[in-house]
């Protein structure tokens, strides 16, 4: 590897220089260092601290330890991450991980003695429709099989650089199974911006736009840009487009508020963190419709008078880096980004910021902190980003799919858009279908489709339950399959995980609980401690040691999480528990040891240390605890 030839300083210095020692670029710098060195060693941390922050050296380790993909310890020449969400587990990721580990002679989470390789589990990597999937040195390998595991093990043993592994390993599929207006009407690059600028022309025909690209009037009143922005906003209002990232807030209101707030500059942020397990629509959009997403961001920039847009994209999608950089570059060449877009006085550019493994960074103010190079903890609640966002300026944060929708609205008009979907949920929605069905993938439906219809279309049989909108969403039994996927009934980011009757919903809940525990940022007490207490209770049930009192405990902790947590992560971390208790109660009942209270404390385990010290193994050194096997 080239890194062995370069000294740490030779690696880090050009990266720090490239980012002009900007403290806001800390995370980006660390990601690039990690990519080359497979760690961020102490000496590199010191150098970065000195160059970016002068004396203070706490910020760098504080940031490194926050993000799953950064590490002070060397992770080896080959770093393998197995996605570990419930869908991956159902498709055998654990067995495959064990196979790889045994072939390589390595323990999960530990670097092999020769420093060659390490294998880890991570949360969802956005590949649930082609699971099991892994990342190797940041590159995605989907649809893992035992045969592929063997090829990977051999390649690592032969020290073959990942770049020379068979290309076929890395093919990520789109799996677009159903198309509606968004997928079908791929708009021409530039057409949405042209539509906006044409409105400016129409407003002030004589002085509007200079076809010759000669010096342009910068005063927006004369150019009609202001009027055109108002018109665009009016179309957005007409479309009634609601945010696709979960909360369903109306995009037009957000845009107008950011536009009206005082600020020295304004920013357009696109949320491509897509951390909700089982979600992968933003990946498919950015892979195939990146122009449309960037176009929507540009339309937003035009409307709110911003000059810079930032795509915040999760580190799990790093394999798309070249593709996205190329699309942006091409748009600059086409004058769809940069100075004087299409010869107008409007200038706007888009940068990409990468995440590094932290679900909470999808929460908008955590994302802004992350873009500013900090730990991704949510900010205090007020003021909202539309007033006090990136760098303290008015900022719009929307989801990838929301911007794609905005591009359509700009081209086709708001009324046309609003004809699709339902009264309160206009347009179409991308659904990410995974789990027990014949055809997992992306399905675009008008809002208002029933769960049952989705299940039929994807070939799901014997379905026991669906999890809508990921772990933070709703766990629904068959009796609720006629409910409609729309903000007025079952709202969602578009995630549909399917579990057939052979699945144990306890395992699903346990997986979700661990996910929230792992992803809690730790800022606030209820979520930091509560998510761990909940996992501990489920561990107890798993061993068949649950008690009726534990069920009360789950309710109490859940209530606290819901009402006292600082952000949506903690507030929704209890949702699967409450659904499971109400709708899948037998998964607890069959694991109840007794209806009375049983302490989590195990006397036998506590005696283990004494047994080891005294070397006793005779029956008298053990206490019979009558550990019930969970009844499956």
């Amino acid at each position: 590897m080239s890194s062995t030839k370069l000294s740490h300083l030779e690696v880090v210095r050009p990266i720090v220089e490239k980012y002009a020692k900007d403290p806001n670029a800390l995370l980006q710098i660390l990601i690039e260092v990690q990519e080359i060195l497979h760690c961020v060693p102490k000496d590199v941390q010191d150098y970065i601290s000195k160059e970016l922050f002068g004396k203070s050296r706490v910020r760098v380790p504080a940031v490194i330890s926050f993000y799953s993909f950064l590490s002070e310890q060397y992770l080896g020449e080959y770093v393998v991450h197995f996605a570990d969400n419930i869908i991956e587990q159902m498709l055998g990721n654990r067995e495959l991980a064990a196979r790889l580990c045994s072939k390589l002679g390595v323990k999960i989470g530990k670097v092999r003695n020769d420093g060659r390789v390490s294998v880890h589990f991570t949360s969802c990597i956005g590949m649930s429709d082609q699971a099991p999937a892994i990342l190797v040195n940041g590159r995605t390998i989907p649809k893992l099989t035992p045969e592929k595991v063997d090829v990977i093990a051999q390649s690592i043993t032969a020290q073959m650089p990942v770049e020379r592994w068979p290309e076929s390993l890395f093919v990520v599929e789109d799996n677009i199974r159903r198309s509606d207006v968004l997928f079908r009407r791929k708009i021409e690059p530039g057409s949405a911006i042209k539509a906006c600028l044409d409105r400016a022309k129409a407003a002030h025909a004589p002085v509007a736009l200079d076809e010759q690209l000669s010096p342009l009037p910068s005063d927006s009143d004369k150019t009609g840009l202001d009027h055109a922005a108002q018109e665009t906003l009016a179309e957005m209002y007409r479309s009634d487009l609601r945010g696709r990232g979960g909360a369903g807030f109306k995009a037009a209101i957000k845009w107008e508020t950011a536009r009206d707030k005082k600020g020295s500059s304004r920013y357009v942020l696109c949320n491509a963190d897509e951390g909700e397990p089982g979600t992968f629509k933003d990946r498919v959009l950015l892979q195939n419709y990146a122009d449309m997403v960037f176009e929507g961001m540009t339309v937003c920039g035009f409307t709110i008078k911003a000059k810079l847009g930032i795509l915040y994209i999760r580190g799990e999608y790093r394999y798309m880096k070249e593709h996205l950089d190329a699309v942006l570059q091409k748009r600059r060449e086409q004058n769809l980004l940069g100075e004087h877009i299409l010869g107008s006085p409007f200038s706007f550019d888009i940068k990409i910021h990468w995440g590094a493994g932290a679900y909470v960074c999808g929460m908008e103010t955590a994302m802004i902190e992350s873009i500013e190079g900090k730990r991704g903890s949510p900010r205090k609640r007020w003021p909202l980003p539309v007033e006090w966002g990136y760098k303290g300026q008015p900022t719009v944060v929307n989801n990838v799919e929301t911007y794609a929708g905005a591009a359509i609205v700009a081209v086709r008009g708001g009324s046309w858009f609003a004809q699709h979907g339902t009264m309160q949920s206009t347009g179409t929605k991308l659904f990410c279908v995974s789990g027990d069905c014949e055809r997992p993938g992306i399905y675009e439906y008008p809002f208002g489709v029933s769960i049952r219809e989705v299940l039929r279309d994807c070939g799901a049989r014997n379905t026991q339950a669906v999890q809508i909108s990921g772990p933070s969403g709703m766990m629904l039994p068959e009796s609720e399959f006629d409910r409609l996927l729309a903000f007025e009934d079952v709202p969602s980011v578009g995630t549909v995980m399917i579990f057939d009757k052979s699945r144990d919903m306890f395992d699903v809940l346990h997986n979700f609980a661990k996910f929230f525990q792992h992803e809690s940022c730790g800022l606030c007490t209820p979520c930091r401690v509560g998510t761990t207490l909940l996992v501990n209770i489920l561990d107890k049930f798993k061993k068949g040691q649950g008690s009726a009192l534990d069920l009360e405990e789950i309710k109490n902790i859940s209530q606290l999480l819901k009402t006292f947590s600082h952000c949506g992560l903690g507030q929704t971390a209890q949702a699967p528990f409450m659904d499971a208790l109400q709708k899948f109660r037998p998964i607890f009942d069959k694991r109840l040891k007794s209806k009375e209270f049983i302490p989590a404390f195990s006397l036998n385990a506590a005696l283990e240390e004494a047994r080891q010290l005294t070397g006793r193994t005779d029956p008298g050194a053990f206490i019979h605890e009558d550990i019930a096997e969970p009844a499956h």
Partner: protein
Amino acid sequence: MENTFSLDGKEIPFEPGQTVWDAAMAAGVYIPHLCHNPDYEPHSSCRLCTITVNGRPFAACTQPAVADQLVHNNTPELNAMRRTILQMLFVEGNHYCPSCEKSGNCKLQSSAYDLGMQDNHFPQLFPHREPDSSHPDVILDRDRCILCGLCVRVSRDVDKKSIFAIANRGIKSELIVNSPSGKLVDSKVSVDDEAMKVCPVGSLMIKRKGFEVPIGQRDYDKEPISVVSLRQFQGRKEGRHE
């Protein structure tokens, strides 16, 4: 005309820009709190100050006061949840009050008394946390740290030293120290730092002050934290206007 909102049925006046917490405390209504110190910017992490505004929960320390809103604070439901928060903080760390130098001056302990917390309720998590007694004058006992972030903020914003930061995430969060060795002895910390005065618990303390005031005669031994806090808050206000 004065702006007011209703707090548990009492009219509370406020000035624009004040938080619910500020306005309540100024009007003599105590709202429990741990991570907030009125001399510094709030950051709403402990959640002990959670109130409801028109039925929806918010952290009082960061919630702007708005005219005519209906705020609830001292209700059995909220206080029960506050007790749970305190119990969580107790089991998350290793708190042995009887042998702790901060006993009687500790906001965690006194809030627990004040809110009627009887026991820790949850199984202890017994984390393993490294204490740092390397410095001649200052000690950091991480077992007692409740991650309120006050020392972090004050050292950064007031002392301009950034001696502390919170590292890791979730339940693994921990306080780290800005020095080459990660130890206090190699840092620029000093007993005169403002950051040394803000720890609500016995985590960050000055050495050799041990038991200067005998147990039984400390701030919260004599009066509940609700009374002491209000007096301190109001005294602070008067001090500022002098």
